[in-house]
């Protein structure tokens, strides 16, 4: 972890702000601009994907625009399955038009005619309202002679479908198994055509950057982590919920605001993220220069068993691994059964070191981000709470 200068804790109101911003007007203003200018603004803003991986959004748009294959697609990744994350549901519930406009602007910029929202099956209750609003929105697009329309495809309960290539497979009626990369979505995405796939929150920021201009966005955050981000705060906190915060704050200021006074550790980035113990709060920066996060912040106080936390995560990965690659399919089972065996005394405590090596090798050799990231919670929890795992 770098010891960069932390920003102060600051609440922001861009994503859910509704007073001044009329999404459809943002669309109207920007449809008068050249597609390249819009893309340049997004690049200039420094916006990185808010799903967790953090690829520069503007570059994604640019690469896809430069592809010659047709048709192109804009996909909104609303398969929010990371434990501890619930911001996309809230966004789609409260400001869906901002998402739609982001998709339409992307379509206009890259030359796509079709936009699809992949909504996780757990959020099916949103469908009725979303479809109604989409119908209206699609009509508005038609009225403006913009050859673009948006539809929704539902998931059916599979965490791995949040991985972009698994999501394409699922949309194509197949098992949601991640593909080999390259090729990347910008060249071969949905239906093996050039595709921009952005997270729900990312799309709202593109709308807002087109509304406010890149400079306003750039003013927030740090050099490596521009702008703000929506955080899903849960666990041992008196004020669980959704908060938009400037990037670059230290974890200690975060805990000061959200903790219950007895915070032992924070799981940053969901089950696949890192567990940070109290002693590192001060030095941990929330952002791409420190610990990046899709927004999940789970707070644990001193009453919680970190064995239970880790066990819960490993059970989750064991079930939700797509199962195709060896390190993830078998590795997750070995980690889970391994800590159980240590807990029961059937394996020596030093077996945890074998398991840590395994986790690190899963990180190196697994096919996709799921298997690669299991090492994050495993190694950070075992390193910092070894006794809790053993005894």
């Amino acid at each position, binding site marked *: 972890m770098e010891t960069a200068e932390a920003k102060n804790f600051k609440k922001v109101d861009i994503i859910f702000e509704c007073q001044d911003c009329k999404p459809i007007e943002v669309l109207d203003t920007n449809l008068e601009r050249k597609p390249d200018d819009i893309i340049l603004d997004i690049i200039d803003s420094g916006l990185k994907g808010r799903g967790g991986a953090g690829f520069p959004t503007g570059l994604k748009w640019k690469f896809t625009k430069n592809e010659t294959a047709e048709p192109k697609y804009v996909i909104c990744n609303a398969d929010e399955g990371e434990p501890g994350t619930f911001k996309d549901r809230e966004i789609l519930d409260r400001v869906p038009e901002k998402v739609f406009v982001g998709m339409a602007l992307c379509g206009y910029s890259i030359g796509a005619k079709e936009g699809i929202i992949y909504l996780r099956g757990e959020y099916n209750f949103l469908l009725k309202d979303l479809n109604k609003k989409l119908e209206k929105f699609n009509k508005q697009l038609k009225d403006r002679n913009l050859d673009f329309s948006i539809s929704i495809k539902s998931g059916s309960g599979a965490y791995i479908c949040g991985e972009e290539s698994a999501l394409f497979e699922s949309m194509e009626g197949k098992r949601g198994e991640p593909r080999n990369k390259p090729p990347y979505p910008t060249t071969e995405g949905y239906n093996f055509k050039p595709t921009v796939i952005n997270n729900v929150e990312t799309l709202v920021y593109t709308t807002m950057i087109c509304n406010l201009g890149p400079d306003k966005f750039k003013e927030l955050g740090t050099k490596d982590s521009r702008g703000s981000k929506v955080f899903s705060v849960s666990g041992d906190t008196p004020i669980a919920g959704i908060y938009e915060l400037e990037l670059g704050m230290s974890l200690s200021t975060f805990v000061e605001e959200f903790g219950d006074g007895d915070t032992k550790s924070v799981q940053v980035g969901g089950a696949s993220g890192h567990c940070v113990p109290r002693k590192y709060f001060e030095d941990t920066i929330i952002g791409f220069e420190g610990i990046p996060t899709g927004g999940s912040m789970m707070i644990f106080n001193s009453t919680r068993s970190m064995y239970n936390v880790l066990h819960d995560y490993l059970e989750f990965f064991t*079930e939700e691994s797509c199962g195709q690659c060896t390190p993830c399919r078998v590795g997750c089972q*070995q980690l889970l059964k391994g800590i159980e065996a240590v807990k029961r005394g059937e394996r020596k405590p030093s077996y945890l070191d074998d398991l840590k090596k395994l986790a690190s090798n899963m990180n190196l050799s697994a096919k996709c981000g799921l298997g690669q990231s299991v090492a994050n919670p495993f190694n950070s929890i075992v390193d910092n709470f070894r006794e809790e795992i053993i005894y």
Partner: protein
Amino acid sequence: MSNNKYLVNLTVNNKPVSVEEGTTILDAARKLKFKIPTLCHHPDLHVAGNCRVCVVEQKGARNLVASCATPVSEGMEIYTNSAKVRESRKHVIELLLSEHNADCTKCIKNGRCELQELASEYRVGDHVFLDLVDEKDKIPDISSPSIQKDDSKCIRCQRCVRTCSELQAVSALAVVNKGDEQRVSTFLNKPLDDVVCTNCGQCVNRCPTGALTERAYLDNVWEAINDPSKHTVVQTAPAVRIGLGEDLGVDPGQRVTGKMVAALKAIGFDSVLDTDFTADLTIMEEGTELLTRLKEALVDNNESTKLPMMTSCSPGWVKFQEHMFPELLPNLSSCKSPQQMFGPLAKTYYAQKKGLKAENIVSVSVMPCTAKKFEAERPEMRASGYQDVDYVLTTREMAMMVKQAGIEFESLEDQNYDSIMGKSSGAGVIFGATGGVMEAALRTAYEIVTGEEVPFKNLNITPVRGMEGVRDAQITVKGAKPEWSFLEGATLNVAVAHGLANAKKLMQAVKSGEKEYHFIEVMGCPGGCLGGGGQPIPTSQEIRDARAKAIYDEDADMPIRKSHENPEIQAIYNDFLGEPLSHKSHDLLHTHYKPRKRY
């Protein structure tokens, strides 16, 4: 090599190499003779990149990359044996072993298992991980007479799944569930004999472990051989003689006919006979059936006679048709396959000639095929009053018998087949290659119609040869004899397909009317029987090409090249059957088919 591809420069283990754009790191490394282990990779199949045993280090990349699935890029620096790579690879092997039922000494694949080989190479004997094998997976599915499925040996490389879908267009096997529950399974995990499986065994050919194997019947055969009251007759299919050597230390593409016969005699079979003989017989029956159908359809306008006529020698193909295109079953030739023509004849004609009782004959066949095991057990296949063929062994099982018998195969002196069903023509031999039945049939049918040899140099009907998935050819009849005058000047359209995915394409073209043919040959396996599911492992296009060359060389070397000139064929018609399509032929040599569920 196409000229419009760019060359990409990279280094592997610091050695520079230039390869075509799109080449994988694996192939680039192989070009430099660096071996990278693989499990899910197979040259016949699309890349999966899921076993991760082939990971290598790419300088500057955070993670290791799967060399089978990653294309080269300019300036890449690859390390195939760094400490990072070795440790990760070893972990992958250990993980696979932890979910694998490693009772190697009891496994039919012992000594020929790719996982075992890797485990030995990487010295993982003392692997530390917990045993994850599910007890309920340890009960193998032995419902099929052809294929055994043992989930406790499965390492989920999905080669079988890709084989079943990409090469065979059947998809009897699929990946089901996810996470720790993920398995390779049939529909609702039904027994193999209850699903659309054609028993082709191509999955068996590509399974790296003992998860999918043939049902082995060696012990039954040994028992029969050792029983003095039994007379054991063995027949060997055309493609066995050009494949068997591979399991006995001989390079692919070597013909071992004489040694094979000698080995079977040394093993103790009372009589070693040739399926090629009944291949010739098949040509007599099927060629005549074709001409009869042509006359019925074209001259008599008989509505119930269906064209194109389709070959029925390949039991995997026949079952495919029963499942997938039952409406085309009337198009299948009523001829049994050579194995099943041999069966009843061994227990009737041969028994009579040799003064044996049918019940004392144990009829064994050695086949490049797993579907033949199923075929032998079809209820239709009891024309002799007994099960016509008692046991079907694969080429691999025969090689195992040779080893068990302590026979030093390569030092055997060549021997000849026994009579009276041991002689064959070159036409019978080429049954083992895709296009061979077609070529053999045309050699005879053309001569029946015109009295002249087929108008191809040295009788080699090259348009129907080769490895193109679907091939077609035209032959124009010139100089038809008076009784076949309706064929004078007619052009016969024929087509050949191999591998069931190609067969499916051809059937769709026929069904839609897009293509019109008179005669179609289909073999269920890629390359025909020479690439059969019972042949030595591994298989690849290169190996199949070598086997095909051996088959056509064998044909070219035969003194007799046409089925109707085989003296033992002439004798069996004179002494026993009468003429092709006679009443007796119908009773013994022809059969019918039944529709099966498609999904």
